[in-house]
């Protein structure tokens, strides 16, 4: 019996029409599920990557702008008044939180409580930093998960596809390459998609984690400096 005929009868794939669509279409439904899941992961990874890239560049630029405004000798009251309505970035949020606590201690209560003000301001700023960092690194875990688990999921699809293709080979009682090749190509397609999803995810995760770390450090530095300024103010007034 001609191996090509066997291949045509058992597996409807022939080497002539090994397009991606036929590879996907003739796969087992579990392999299909894996492929679709990995495709969705890839889409999601790239969406997060685009979002984060835009977010971090915008955040970095606004920080630069705020720092130049902060150190320009402008009155902190004015700065607070302009930003308090909508703190649109992390450093502004930090500044607004600290200033609000400062103002509340001075203006709100009749007796001025300077004793715990320093500690309160630092506490508020720390909480704000934590919240801002959390906002920056939101969804980064998705990238980490896809980057580490994607290849395994793809490998699972491949193993499953090869298992089913071996069953087909056993059924056809023919081990010629024309019979074996389409099933294995179809199975390997799952690993390919897994790698396609995982490689960018890993790269973006490393890049973004570094970026988040840098911005968090910058926030910490600003918080320390601002806390020092406020502490001097408290000592002067008290």
């Amino acid at each position, binding site marked *: 019996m001609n191996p090509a005929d066997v291949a045509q009868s058992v597996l409807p794939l022939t*080497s*002539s029409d*090994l*397009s*991606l*669509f036929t590879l996907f279409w003739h796969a087992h439904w579990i392999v299909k599920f894996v492929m679709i899941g990995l*495709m969705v992961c*890839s*889409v*999601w*990874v*790239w*969406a*997060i*990557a*685009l*979002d984060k890239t*835009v*977010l971090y560049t915008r955040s970095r630029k606004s920080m630069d702008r705020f720092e130049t405004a902060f150190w320009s000798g402008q009155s902190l009251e004015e700065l607070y008044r302009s930003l308090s309505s909508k703190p649109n970035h992390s450093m502004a949020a930090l500044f607004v939180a600290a200033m609000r606590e400062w103002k509340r201690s001075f203006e709100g209560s009749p007796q001025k409580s300077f004793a715990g003000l320093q500690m309160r301001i630092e506490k508020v700023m720390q909480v704000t930093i934590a919240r801002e960092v959390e906002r920056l690194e939101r969804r980064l875990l998705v990238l980490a998960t896809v980057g580490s688990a994607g290849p395994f999921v793809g490998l699972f699809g491949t193993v499953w596809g090869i298992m089913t293709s071996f069953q087909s080979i056993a059924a056809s009682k023919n081990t010629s390459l024309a019979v074996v090749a389409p099933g294995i*190509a179809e199975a390997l397609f799952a690993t390919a998609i897994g790698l396609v999803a995982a490689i960018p995810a890993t790269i973006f995760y490393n890049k973004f984690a570094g970026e988040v770390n840098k911005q968090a450090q910058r926030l910490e530095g600003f918080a320390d400096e601002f806390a020092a300024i406020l502490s001097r103010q408290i000592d002067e007034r008290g």
Partner: protein
Amino acid sequence: MQMKTASVISTGLHIAVLAWATLSFTGKTFEVTPAESLPVDLISEKEFSQLTKGIKDAPKPVETPKPIVEKKAEEPPKPVEEIKPKIDEKREVAPNKEVKQEAPPPDPIADKLKPQEKPPEKQETAKAEPQPLPPKKPPPPKPQPKKPEFNADKIAALLDKRDPTRKSITGNELNSAPSLGTASGSAAQLSQSEIDALKARLYALWSPPAGAQDAGNVQITIRIKFKRDGTLATGPQVLTSGSGPVFNAMRDSAVRAVLVGQPYTMLRPDHYETWQEIDFVFDSSKMYSDIPVRRQ
């Protein structure tokens, strides 16, 4: 909002990449240049021996005289006439030789018998009926015309006139030189397959003692005399002299192998003369390798 636009852009990019991949991802079929198949026949040793065996009435001997005719072609008709009878006679010579020894004796006996038979027949026929006489007269003339063909003088005369190259090949092997001059008229050679078969048989039966491999290169030559049926004519005769327990054990083992191995049917009785007496060399260092077989 930001995430939504990013998702939309990502999805669009993926669709574009997939579409491009679907269009461009086409496995090119490997062009396999069909290799020309070599027909291989597997033949056994026996078939190989038969292949190398010549056929007595092969067409080749008839064709060989032709070039000689062309050489002498200055007078075309004469050599043709000369050669034609020679070939005819030559063809008869080969079978004659085999019968030679047998054919002459029956003639005198027949001659003696004929006169003996004739008187009683005559007496019987005289007594009984004269009719059976005519059929019995024809037989006597029949041997008489044959006699000139069997005449040894004529054959000798023909042989003297001829070049040895003109003689037809009657040997057992293709392309072998004619061996008409020998008594056997067969190829004076053991074929390689026969040698290998004999070697394989004897080496399979020969089991040197365990320590023999350390003893190094020990060669034991044994003279074997065969009968025509492949059995031993006499006991194996050890030609190599030596001493030591290892040598003794190997020598005894070799003698045993020769005794156990008979009858050696792989040796063809056609050319019994070639293997009537063989000096076989058992070589401990060359087990299963090329062992020389010398013919005495």
